[in-house]
């Protein structure tokens, strides 16, 4: 049973395209996140949702739009992809509140050409 699952695992696309990454968690957690890991392996928060409500948006370009249809899903849609968007994107979930362990998906490696 995969706790946090992301699809696809790999995504290669051309500049200017629009793409989506899906994330689902079966842990019953209230909070979900999107993180971006750049080529230097630096992992940074992008968005955080709690019970389908956006609570953190870390100055991410508005080409990135998260959507949470229910608290078990948090999808990431990216418009007009740019070369600099190439990275590994991780979805995670946790119980609400600081101090809760975050469980991560296996990551989606996005390559924009």
């Amino acid at each position: 049973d995969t706790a946090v699952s992301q699809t696809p695992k790999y995504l290669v696309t051309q500049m200017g395209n629009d793409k989506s990454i899906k994330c689902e968690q079966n842990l019953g957690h209230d909070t979900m996140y999107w993180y971006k890991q750049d080529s230097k392996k630096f992992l940074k928060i992008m968005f955080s949702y709690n019970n389908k409500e956006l609570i953190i948006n870390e100055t991410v370009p508005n080409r990135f739009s998260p959507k949470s249809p229910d608290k078990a899903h948090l999808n990431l849609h990216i418009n007009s992809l740019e070369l600099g968007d190439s990275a590994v994107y991780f979805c995670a979930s946790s119980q609400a509140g600081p101090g809760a362990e975050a469980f991560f998906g296996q990551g989606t490696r996005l390559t924009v050409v």
Partner: protein
Amino acid sequence: SQELEQSPQSLIVQEGKNLTINCTSSKTLYGLYWYKQKYGEGLIFLMMLQKGGEEKSHEKITAKLDEKKQQSSLHITASQPSHAGIYLCGAHPSGAQKLVFGQGTRLTINP
């Protein structure tokens, strides 16, 4: 904003040797997490420390949080090839529902 600095950034050790990775915070830590990442995979939770002076162990990995709660160390005893990967420390900035991470330490174990 809270920042985490890990050292070293890269570490190569001979199999069987001990090693230590450090994580230093610019502010008091309210929960320090250690994760491990293998290439092409997600982050695997190792340990969480909350109290000053706390120490936890899992198999051959021991993590400590100092009394002032601004520095943590991860110690691996008798390293094995399975320990290879990227180790990341993470923390919650006070009151925030997110984790900030250090830049990671890439560990290579030579047979």
